C-alpha cells in the first residue's frame, strides 16, 4: 500500500497530495517534486512519434533508502505518483498498475464533474476516500 499519492497537473503543480505520516508531509512533497524530473526524462526518452502508443505506466521511477517511487502519466500529461515503502515487498508491479488504474479512473470521474474547474486542486470526497483506501492505514 502506498504511503503517499500525488496527482500533478500538466504544468507540474500539485493537484492533490496525500501522505500518511502527516509529520513527514514536507519530505514527501520534496520526493514527489523531485520525481517529476525522472518522469520527464522517461517521457522524453520515448520518441515523439511513439508518444501515442506509449504506455501510461512508467514503472519504478527511482528507489530511495526508504521508499520506492512509481509514476504514471496520462495522455493529457497529468502525472500520478505513488510512493510506497521499500520494506513492503508484497507490492508487485501488477498491484501498482492496478492502483494507478484505479487512481486514473477516479481522476477521470473528478474531471467529469461539471463543477470541477480543470486546474483546481482536487477536493472531491469520492476521490479522497478512494485514495485513502489505497493508502497504508495509519496505525
Amino acid at each position, binding site marked *: 500500500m502506498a504511503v503517499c499519492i500525488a496527482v500533478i497537473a500538466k504544468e507540474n503543480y*500539485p493537484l492533490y497530495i496525500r501522505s500518511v505520516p502527516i509529520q513527514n*508531509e*514536507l519530505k514527501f*512533497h*520534496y520526493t514527489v517534486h*523531485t520525481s517529476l*524530473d525522472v518522469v520527464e526524462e522517461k517521457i522524453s526518452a520515448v520518441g515523439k512519434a511513439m508518444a501515442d502508443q506509449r504506455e501510461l505506466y512508467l514503472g519504478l521511477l527511482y528507489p530511495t533508502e526508504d521508499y520506492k517511487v512509481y509514476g504514471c502519466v496520462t495522455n493529457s500529461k497529468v502525472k500520478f505518483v505513488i510512493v510506497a515503502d521499500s520494506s513492503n515487498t508484497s507490492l508487485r508491479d501488477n498491484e501498482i498498475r492496478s492502483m494507478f488504474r484505479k487512481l486514473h479512473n477516479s481522476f477521470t470521474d473528478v474531471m467529469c464533474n461539471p463543477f470541477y474547474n480543470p486546474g483546481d486542486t482536487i477536493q472531491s470526497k469520492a476521490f479522497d476516500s478512494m485514495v485513502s483506501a489505497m493508502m497504508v492505514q495509519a496505525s
Partner: protein
Amino acid sequence: MAQCVQSVQELIQDSFVPKVAVLCSEDAQKITRKNNLNFSELLRPFCRLTSEGHMRDSNNQVQVVKNLRISVNNVVTRPSVPTSGVHSPAQRRLLSEVVSASQPAEGGVANVITAGDYDLNISDRSVKASVPWYSDWRDTLTELSTSKHYTATTPWFEAYRESFLQSMPASDHEFLNHYLACLLVVSSSEAVPVEQFLKLSQEQHMIQHNGEYTNPKWFIPNTLKYYVLLHDMSQGDEQRADSVYEDMKQRYGSQGCYLLKINSRTAAAGTDEQIPDPWSQYLNKSSLQNGVSVNSLDNTHPLQLETAIDMPGSLDCLRAVATETKTTTVYTGVAAGTSHGACLTLNDHNRLRLFIQEFTFRGLLPHIEKNIRQLNDQLVSRKGLSRSLFSVTKKLFGGGKVPEKSIAELKNTSGLLYHPEAPELQIRKMADLCFLVQHYELAYSCYHTAKKDFLSDQAMLYAAGALEMAAVSAFLQGGAQRPYPAHYMDTAIQTYRDVCKNKVLAERCALFSAEVLKSQAKYSDAATLLIKMTSEDSDLCSALLLEQAAHCFINMRNPMVRKFAFHMILAGHRFSKAGQKRHALRCYCQAMQVYKGKGWSLAEDHINFTIGRQSFTLRQPENAVLAFRHILTNDSQQTATQQGAFLREYLYVYRVALPQLPLPCINSSATRVYFGHERRLAEGEKQAATHVSLDQEFDQDLAAVWQDLEEQVVAAANRGVVPSTFYPTQCCLNSQTDNLHFPLAVVEEPIIVEVAFRNPLKVPLVLSDLSLLWKFTLKDFSRPQPQDVMVGDAVTITNEKEAIAPRKHGIITTEVIPEFFMSPEETRVARLKLLPRQTGQLTILGLVYNLASTPSTGDSTINSNSFSQNQGPSVRGRQDLEIQGPRLNQTKEEKTSVSHGPDRRLDPTITPPMPLLEVFFLQFPTALLCGEIRKAYVEFCNVSHVPLCGLRVASTHPDFFTFGSSSLATPLTPLSPTSFENCSAYKTLATPPGATPGSVTAVTLVSAADFGSGGGGVFGTGGKRVAEIPLGEGTLTPGESTQLPLWLRGPDQEGVHEINFLFYYEGAEKGGKIRWGDHRVLRHTVFICASRSLSVRATACRSNTLPEEEGRNGSMLVFVDVENINTSEAGVREFHIAQVSSSSKQWRLHKCINPAENKDCKLTTRERGKLCFRATRSTSKSLEKYTFADLSLGNEQIISSTTPCADFFFRRCQSSESWRPLIAVETQGRHSRSQGAGPGGGAEDITGVVRKCNEVDLDIIVLWKAFVVEDNKQVILEGQLHVALQTIGKEACSLRQKEEAQEMVLLKFKPELPPPMTRPSMEQLSHLIKTNLHYPESYSHSFVQKSLCMIPVILTLSNCSLAQVDAIIDLRHKTTSPESLEVHGSFTWLGKTQYKLQLRAQEVMRLPLRAGFLHAGVYNLGTPRVFAKLADQGAMCETSQQTATPALIIINST
C-alpha cells in the same frame, strides 16, 4: 554546473607533482625572513615551469615534460596527520575557512541556465537576485537573458578541493606524495658553508633512514640532495659567495649545487618601485589559520522544519556565529595587508625562476630518469621468476580468478602492509615516477600490473591505490587508445571506503572520478557518485558534494531541474550545519527559483522559512522579512503549530521601523467609512432619528429611495430646480456607493473607518495600539482661493512619525484601539475613529498597529522559555489601505482594457463647521390601525455651533404624517372638554344640545393652499413628498431645540410599512461659494405595523326628488357602507362612527337620511352598517376652495376643516392624484376648454362633456372612534378614512383596490394603433339628461262617475351636462317588458306624444303631461322614453336616456 578554471587534466596533473623537501640553515632562514617568507614560500610562486623538459624513458625514447610543477615544502618531522583516513579537526577548520572565505563575488556576471520551463539564475549574484519577489526576479532574468550565458562557477568548491588535495597526508601505499629530492640551503654569510652543508646532509639522512621519524616520507632511499648557497646581495660579500660556490661545484658537481642571489634591494630603499607580490595568493590561505569555532548547530534532518520551540536560543546562537565569522574576515584583511618579498627586485624574481628551472632540469628530472631506469631493470630481472611463480601458485591454490572475488570477501586482508622496500612496491614506485613526469602510458601499464599483484595478494589498500591511479593515468593518456575504465574508480572508491575505512582517500578518488566523468559528460554517473560520497561525518564535504551533484543534474542533456533544486536544498542544509551560512542561503535561494510559484506550497514555505532565518543571521533583515512575509501571506497549508512558529519567528526577526505587515489580511474593498457622530438610538422616552449607521447593511434599492427623496427635497428647497452641482449626501461609504467624489466630513465631527480584518492563520493574533494612519493637507475654505495654487503651497502633515509612539495630535485626534484580538481564521471588523479639528484635505493611508501572537494555551510543546515572555514578541508596523475603484466599463477602450476608476472613500475633505441636527421622536407609536390618527411630538435639536434653517422633510409616505398647518394654528373655540380627556387629536366642538344627531351640518370653506404645507406651487412640480417644517422663527440657533406636534395617520393598507423620513436643513448663512455648503440631511426610518380597522364603501346616485332650490339640480344620495374588518387581535372592542364629513369643491353633505336608532353608529367585530346621506351642491362660488361639511353622529363635532383631519385629507388627495392623474388633469382641461371655446370641439370634447355630467368629485371622510382594551384600560383611538367618490353609480372604497394583475398581457408584435377617437359610450351618453316625474302618489277617482281619469304629470328634464342638448320625448313608446303587458295595466298618455326640446347647459325644464287611466290600480308612469344628443353633434343619433326608477301611481276607485 561547477565549471572549473582548470581543465580536468590540469587539475589532476597539479594534484600529483614531484615533491621537494627543503632543509635550511639558520642563517639562510634569516635571509629569507627579511621578505616575511621562509625559503619554500619564497620559491612557491615560481614552481611552475614555463619551458618544456625532456627525459628519456627506459626504452631510450624522448619524453616531453610539459608544464611541470614541483612542490617545495619544508621538512616537517612532526607527525601532523594521522593516517587514519579522517581529517583532523585542524584540517577541517582549515577547509571550512577556505570555503567560507571563497564567496560568490557580488555583482559578478549572472548565469542563467534555461532548463525546460525553468530559467535558473545560478549566479554569483544569486543572493540578491533571487530574493523572494517573483517579479523582481523575473526582471533580473530578462535583463540577464540578453547578455551572454555563462556557466556557473563554484570557486568555493575549487578552493576546497585544492586545499583538500594539498592537505592529503602521505601514505604508505602510494609514493606520489613522497619527497623525491631535498634542497639543502645554506647562507653564504656562514663561516664555513661547506660544513653547514654537511650538517644538513647528515640531518636529512638521519630523518630519512633513522626510523625515528615516520612523517616525511621519502620516495627512494638515496634521495637527491641539491645544495643551494643562498647569498644576500644587500650585505654579504659576493666574491666570497662565488668562491664558495666554486668550491661546492668541485665537491658536488655543477649539477648538484646552485648559487642563489637574492635580496638585491634593501628594505629601507623605499617603496618607489612597485613590485608585484606573487606570494599573496599563495599565502593568504595559510594565514587564515586563526580558529573559527564551528558550531554544529542542529543535527536535524534537512527536510524537517525546526519548530520554533527552541527558536530564541538557536537564533542567538546563529547570531554569535555570524559575529565570529565577521571578525575572521576582518583578520583576513589585516593579514593580506602585510607585504611579502619586500627585499626582492624583479631581477631577483627572475633568479628564483631560473633556479627552479635549473634545479628541475639539471637535478630532478635526471634523477627521476635514473631511478625509473633502475627500477625498470630490477623489475625486468625479477619478472620472469616472480610472475610465473605467483601465477602458478595462484592457479594451484586459488582455484579461481582473484580479481573477480567480491570486495566483501577481501575485507579481512585490508590490514596487509608491505615493507617499504618490498618488491611488490617497486613497480608501484616506478608507476608513480612515470606518472609524475607525465609518462602516462608507462604509468598505466605499471599500475595495471601492480594492481594485479596487489589484488592477488589481497592487499586492498594498495590495490585500490593502483586502481585509482590506473584509471587516472588511462584518462590522462588522452587519445582513444584506451577507454576510460570507470569501474576501476568505482572499485577503488568502494575499497577505500568500505574495506580500508579511509574516507579521505575515498573522497579524493571520488573528486577525481567525478571530474573525469563530468569531462566526459557522464553527469548522471557523476551525480550518483557524488551523492554516494556524502556522509554524516563531514557536513562541509557533504554540502559541497551535494551542491556539485545538483550542478550535475542541471547540466544533463535533459536538465533535471527539480533534482537540482532538491539537492541544492540538501546542500544548503548541510552548509548551514557546517556553519557556512552564506553558502546555505545561496543554495536555498537557488532552489527557491525552482519551487517558486509552482504550487508546492509546503516546500516553498520551508525554503522561505529557511531563507528568512539564514538572511537574518547574515544581517539581511530585509530579505528575511520578505521571505517571512511570503510564508505568512500565502494561503498556508501548514498546521497551526507550524504557523505559530512562523509567526513568532517572523516577529522575532522583525526589526525594521514601521514596515508593512502581512498580517492580518485586510479586505480593503470592504472598508466602510462613516462620517458623523455615532448616534444614540434612544434617550429616555425620546427616540432618536435612526439616520445611517455602520451597523446597517447597504441596500442598493434603499439608497436609491433616499437619493430620490433627497433630490426632491433639494428641488423643493431650490424653487423646484435641482442644482447642477447637486450630489447626494452619503454618510456611509462602502464598496457599492459612488465613491468618485471626495466625501465631505465636517470639522469637529468624527470620521469612523471600519476595516475588515481576516486572520488567515490557524493561530490567534493580537493587534494592539491599533490606529489609523493619515495624511492631512491644511486648507482654509473661508477665504476663496484658486484651487491650483493650494496644492502647491499647502502644508502636508502626517502622523506616520507619531504612529511609532502614539500620542495625541492637535490637528486630528486619532483614536487608538488598545487591543484587538483575532481568533484563528476569524474575520472581524475594527472601527477606528478620527476627529478632525481643522479644515483641509485628509487622506487615510492605512493602519498602524503592534502585531503579536499569543502562545496558544493548548500547545503543550511550549516550554518555560517562551512562557517567560508572556506574550510573544510584538512588532509595530503598518498596513496600507489601498482601495481599487470600480472597473470602468463605459467606453470601448475601457471595455477592452482593464482599468479602474478612482475610489475616494478614504480621502475626505474636511469642511468648515456646518449645522448638525438631531431629531427625537416622542410618543411615537409602532402599531396603528389603518387610518388611525395619533399625535406625537418631534423634537428638533441643533447640536452644532452654527445656526440652522430651512428645515424640510421628505418622506416616502407623505400621507402618513403632518405637522399641521401653520395658518390655522389658532384653535377654534370652544373646545369640548372631552377632547382633552381623551387626548383627542382632533379639535372638537360640543354638539349643540338637543340637536338630532346626523342632522347638524357645519360647513367650512377652506382653501387647499392652507394645507398644502409646501405652498400650492409645490404640488405641481413633483415636490409632493416634501413638507416644510414650521419652525418658530425659521431658524434654530446653536444648541436650541424645539418640540413640534406631529400627527400620524395609520396607512390605509394593512401590514408593516417602512416609512422613510429625510430631514433636510441648511446653514443659516447660505450662498457661500463652496459647493458643499448647501445642505445636510438626516435620515429616519420607522416601521409601522398597520392593522385593519374599517372598510368604507360609498356610492352616489342621483336623487330623483325634485330639487329643493330653484336653479340647482344638484342633489345626490350618498350611501356609505361601513364594515368592521378588524381581526380583533388588537383588542378593539367596537368602532363608533363619530362623524361623517365631506369635502369637495362642488358638493357637500347635507343631512343624514337614516339616523340610526342608537345615537352612535356602533360596529362590533364583523358588523356592517349602512349610512345614507343626502348631498347637495355647495353654494360656494369659489372654485379653488373646498367645502368641508361635518355631519356629527355623536355628541361632539369634530372640526374636520382644521389641522389633523384636513391635513390628512389633502395629503390623501395629493397621493391619490398620483394614481389617478389622468382624470384630474383631463377634467380640468376639458372644463376650461368647454368654457372658453364653447361648443364646436371635436369628438373628444363630447367625451369630456359627457363624462363631466357623471362626475361627482366628492370626498367622504369617515371619522371613527375605536374602543380598545389595553392593559385593562379602555383607550379610545380615533381615526379617519377617506373615500373619494368620482362617478355617479360607481362604488368607491376606502381601501385602494388592488390593481389588476398585469402580468398576462398579450405580447404585441405590432405597434399599437393609436386608440380610435374615443366616442362616449352609450352608457355614458345615457346620463345626459336626468328625468323626474312629478305626480300625486295616489289618486282617488270614481270610475263610476267618469270612466276616464286624467292626471297631470310633470316631467322634469334636467340637463346634467354643460353643453346644449337636444332631447326627444316619446310617449308613444310601449314598454315591451313583460310586466307592463298586463291586461289592465295600460294607461295612455294624452296629448302630444312626441316633444322635441332643446336644453341649455344645466337647464331644468318642466314638461306638463297628462295621463289617462281607465281602471283603478297601480301603474308605472315611467314609460316616457327620452332620447338625447348633444346639440352640436348633428351626425349623432340620439341615445335613449336612462329611465328613472319606476314611478308608481295608485289609482283608487271610489
